């Protein structure tokens, strides 16, 4: 990938220009990973390949494979960092092997994307988490990776929570005083923000003024959906308690760090120029019409060290449009509707365990 690309405006290409940019690069990545990653080559060998004419023709990998297999396209000594998914709901975690180049691409892509939303000014940054989450620098959880990724975009990084997951009000007040009048950046995981910022403030009755901040958050709505908290409720509730009006969710995953999909003021997630999204019809696995609910596939030209450039996720969503969002950004925009629901399995005959055994 040409690193100069990361300096271009992140949402500046229309559909045709973007296809011209992405298709050859993604095809080249397929070849590169086929040469260097044996399990990936075996997969391509087993699935008969069709002629690639569009992004949808590119062979995808189900994202789950990163949990069950070591998929890397670099020698062991080239591994610079290993990212792991948080793995709260299943015992298996994804392991993503990064070399220096990929790690750099990820950081730069993230900066390019966020600059579009926040400008070039590096804001004082408040992290809704506790500092221990990023202690081990060789192996990161998704949470740690997210925090460090976004951190490069802020300064004076301050952690809001202590290890007991309580708000450290002293630190918070000191931070707000020190940077009074300046725009701030806040970052955290959706659920943590809800549970440990919003719920704590609600319980303690303390008022804080965060109206100067831009709150960026990610990490999925699953736990919030269980509490019937949707994006709108999330935004309204936080605004009520903290005065914060700029809140943006983003969709991303540890398997494709860097090329994240950030929510605009219209509430739409946007694909930047080095990434794209395809929604697949779960009846056929073909491409779903715009507006139709389907399974999300994500494409990114950043992954050089592992075959994660075209991934079929287990999330549901729909493409809302392309090149015509009223926020002005070009490219596809979409929304996520959560994970594919796990209707209870019939249990493969085993009466005592729900794990498929037969």
């Amino acid at each position, binding site marked *: 990938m040409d690193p100069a690309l990361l300096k271009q405006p992140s949402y500046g290409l229309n559909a045709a220009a973007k296809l011209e940019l992405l298709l050859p690069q993604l095809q080249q990545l397929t070849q590169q990973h086929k040469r260097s990653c044996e*399990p990936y080559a*075996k*997969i391509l*060998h*087993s*699935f*008969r390949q*069709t002629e690639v004419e569009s992004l949808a023709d590119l062979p995808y*990998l*189900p994202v*789950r*494979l990163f949990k*069950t*297999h070591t998929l890397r396209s670099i020698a062991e000594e080239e591994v610079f960092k290993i990212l792991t998914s948080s793995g709260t709901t299943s015992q298996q975690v994804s392991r993503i092997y990064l070399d220096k180049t990929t790690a750099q691409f990820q950081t730069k892509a993230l900066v390019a994307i966020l600059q579009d939303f926040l400008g070039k000014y590096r804001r004082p940054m408040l992290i809704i988490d506790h500092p221990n989450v990023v202690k081990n620098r060789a192996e990161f959880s998704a949470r740690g990776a997210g925090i460090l990724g976004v951190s490069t975009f802020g300064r004076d990084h301050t952690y809001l929570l202590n290890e007991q997951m309580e708000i450290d009000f002293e630190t918070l007040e000191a931070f707000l005083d020190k940077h009074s009048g300046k725009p701030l950046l806040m970052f955290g995981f959706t659920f943590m923000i809800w549970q440990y910022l919003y719920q704590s403030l609600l319980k303690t009755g303390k008022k804080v003024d965060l109206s100067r901040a831009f709150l960026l958050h990610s990490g999925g709505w699953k736990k919030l959906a269980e509490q019937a908290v949707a994006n709108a409720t999330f935004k309204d509730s936080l605004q009520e308690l903290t005065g914060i009006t700029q809140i943006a969710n983003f969709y991303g995953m540890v398997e494709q760090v860097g090329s994240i999909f950030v929510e605009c003021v219209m509430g739409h997630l946007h694909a930047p120029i080095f990434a794209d999204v395809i929604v697949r*019809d*779960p*009846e*056929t*696995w*073909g491409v779903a019409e715009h507006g139709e609910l389907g*399974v999300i596939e994500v494409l990114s030209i950043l992954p050089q060290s592992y075959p994660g450039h075209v991934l*079929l996720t*287990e999330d*549901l969503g729909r493409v809302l449009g392309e090149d015509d969002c009223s926020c002005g950004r070009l490219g596809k925009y979409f929304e996520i509707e959560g994970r*594919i*629901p*796990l*209707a*209870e*399995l*019939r*249990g*493969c*005959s*085993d*009466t*005592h*365990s729900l794990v*498929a*055994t*037969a």
Partner: protein
Amino acid sequence: MNNLDFVIPKENSWEELLQVRPLSPFASVSSDFAKALSQQLLQQGQTYPEMMALGFWLRRANLSRLEREFTEKNTSDQFRLPQGLVFHIAPANVDTLFVYSWMLALLVGNKNFLRLPTQDTPQIKHLLNIIGRLFEDDTYQALRQRNMLVRYGHDDEINLIASAHCDVRVLWGGDGTVQNIRRFPLQPAARELNFVDKFSLAFLDAKAVFDTRAFEQLIQHFCNDAFGFDQRACSSPRLVVWLGSDHQVKQAQNKFWSGVVQRTTKQPPPIPVHLRMEKLITQYEFAVKWDVQVPASTTAYVNRIELSSLDKLPTDLHCGGGLFYEFSVHDLKELIPVLSKKIQTISIFGISGENLRQLLSINLCAGVDRIVPIGKALDFHHHWDGYDLLSEFSRSIIFSKGP
């Protein structure tokens, strides 16, 4: 026995169940109950084909056939009586199976303590509704006292007590369940029937498939076998083996699978999206671990994996939902390596059953419990996994009349 979550009939207790005596084999109250249940199922079961199948199995003609088979076991120097108390542990993968197990034991005269599947699927709810309502009728007072359909969690105490008192323990479950339940001792003279994880296959003659005039019917039969119970029944065909030359097989495969794809596109089987995703992932898992080919598919309902060998067939990776392992052979004999104890049903099309029978007899294969025509894979029979349930649920008494 205090932790039973759900009991039909409501007023029944374990203590009472232990005290009452069994009934005579094929007592009229038992047959009447079975017939009434059959009627209800056939009237109300239209939405669920498996309910219709159960209703059909319980109809008068089949009950008489069962009774005849049972009484024919009585000879001038032998007769049969019920075992006593049967403890059934129902499977989670086939909603209707507990009724078959229960009704056979009941017809023979036994008292029954039956653990229902933990999951409350619409099918099970429907069944329990019908059964509950029938039990309200005082005509079936004698059966009310002698049967308990219960639901409970992972409760060692209940398993322990039920195991200690039953005369037969019937376990429909996976290998894991069998190991778990075996921890609970039975009475020395009690009998245990374990229906363990099995794997089934369809065996088709390529030329016969290509040439058949009843092609649509073949496809319909295969789809019924394959997509019923989300392809998670032990008898669901999960491996499709073709017999024929390479060319014949190729031709037949193309025709056959486009037929299946067409049919499932027109009438999509109720496979949940996550299961369609599981199948896809299984294909990738296979591709990484084995030497396989994965043909492209235009529907998310049919997924195939062409194996390059039947050796070490990874049966436990199969997730159901319309996933088909495939293999072709030139000769019947090539099937032998796969016919382990794990194999239950071979459903056949265009294959001579007699040849298969010879193959099994001559080679003394360890596996295979059933050979049926395609379309009959999911039909229940009281001879199951090598057991004759009418015999197992009863005991025979021999009397010698002297010289």
